[in-house]
């Protein structure tokens, strides 16, 4: 999957949320998307899943079968878990027996006859993940899938993600809980400053150091620090 010069904004003449996004997502890779709150991670994930269209640029080579699990599964629907997943299986063109298979793997078989509005946050999250997995997606996009999950599922999900990737599924996941960190060969993307780029894990971490200097020496100290290769910014007065 190829992102070429992709930019996105919610409204015409609104601010660009993401711009100059050029990257390739290879089949069978696990991609972790990081970034601070509000940086545009969810927007990027929606662009990956094809739920948002770029304002500029293009996304090419998206697979046909896409699974998307949102950060908050919409429980305000008049279905039981079983009937909801049966409908989603039907939309995905796969048999209703896949519902039982994924309910068992994610450990919510006993909730199949519970109504969606009655689910806890973690159980709803499992249903959200299950509906994305029903037809064996070629591209799986998970937005904070570990939030609210019980310990057993949180421990099992990285293995499941690894199995899917080994089967050729591209998995793109945002993960504040750092649950997929132990998986090998995880490619990391960072959403920051309105764009998305590869996170260089070999670069040393940065920190901010405040230096108090006499006012008449401020230009001299700044020049020295810049000469030594540090980034310097003056506080706004």
């Amino acid at each position, binding site marked *: 999957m190829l992102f070429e010069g992709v930019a996105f904004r919610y409204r015409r003449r609104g601010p660009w949320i993401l711009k100059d996004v050029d990257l390739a997502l290879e089949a069978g890779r696990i991609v972790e998307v990081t970034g601070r709150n509000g940086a545009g991670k969810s927007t990027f994930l*929606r662009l990956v*899943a094809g739920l948002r269209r770029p304002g500029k640029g293009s996304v090419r080579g998206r697979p046909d079968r896409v699974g*998307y699990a949102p950060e908050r599964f919409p429980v305000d*629907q008049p279905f039981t878990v079983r009937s909801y997943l049966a409908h989603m299986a*039907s939309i995905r063109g796969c048999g209703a027996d896949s519902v039982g298979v994924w309910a068992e793997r994610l450990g919510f078989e006993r909730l199949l006859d519970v109504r969606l509005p009655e689910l806890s946050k973690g159980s709803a999250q499992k249903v959200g993940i299950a*509906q994305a997995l029903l037809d064996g997606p070629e591209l799986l996009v998970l937005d904070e899938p570990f939030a609210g999950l019980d310990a057993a599922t949180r421990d099992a999900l990285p293995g499941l993600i690894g199995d899917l990737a080994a089967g050729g599924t591209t998995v793109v996941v945002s993960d504040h809980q750092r649950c997929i960190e132990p998986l090998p060969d995880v490619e990391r993307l960072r959403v920051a400053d309105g764009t998305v780029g590869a996170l260089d894990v070999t670069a040393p971490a940065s920190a901010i150091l405040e230096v108090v200097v006499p006012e008449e020496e401020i230009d001299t100290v700044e020049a020295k620090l810049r000469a030594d290769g540090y980034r310097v910014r003056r506080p706004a007065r």
Partner: protein
Amino acid sequence: MIAIARFQAAAYVRSLRVLHPLIVVVLVVALVLAQGPGGPDAAALAVGTFGDVAAFMFPVWAWAARALLDTQPDEQRALTAAAARHRWAPVWAGLLAAYGVNLCLGLVTLAVPLVQAVSLGSPGRAVAAGLALNALVAAAGTLLGAWTSRAVLPSPGVSLLALLGGASALVLLGLGPLSAVSVPMIEWLRAVHDGPETFVADFPGIAVHLAVWTALVGAAYVATDRFRS
């Protein structure tokens, strides 16, 4: 597409939102339509009822379509779009589900007038034209509702105003020189009340007008779907 339409219709029915227009329809049937036409022109008046029902139901169909399309939460709309195999399936499926529900509401409304028209000996061609008119107006009403749904107009207040204003504007437009761009409500009401023969003679023109209006408004709705994501 059928699976998505079934899912949306099931959500609309299970959420009991379907009761809102159904209660209105049942009240109208019980309080107005159940009495039936009388007198020497009863057979002709029974045909006229089909036109009256179509005019009354036009905003009700728009309202029901808007409610059906608004039943699923926004995030579920995204999940359905991700699950759908074809880019256009969700938008067509939404229209199909809304139209299907509206046809059912139409059947509930027209059951009594249909029995009355048949028992009074109204001309069969006029009765068939009356039924076809309602099917066409249901499609037009569905599209008006779709244009005021949350996917197009996220604000509930603006959406409701657009629904009421749109229905009123289409009626008013039909009275003036711009009647060609509106639904031909005045034409069909005039035709059904001028007698069954006039209605049958005028129906093809009215049907073509409704079909063209529906096709253009529907094409614009589907074509602009890409700007809503």
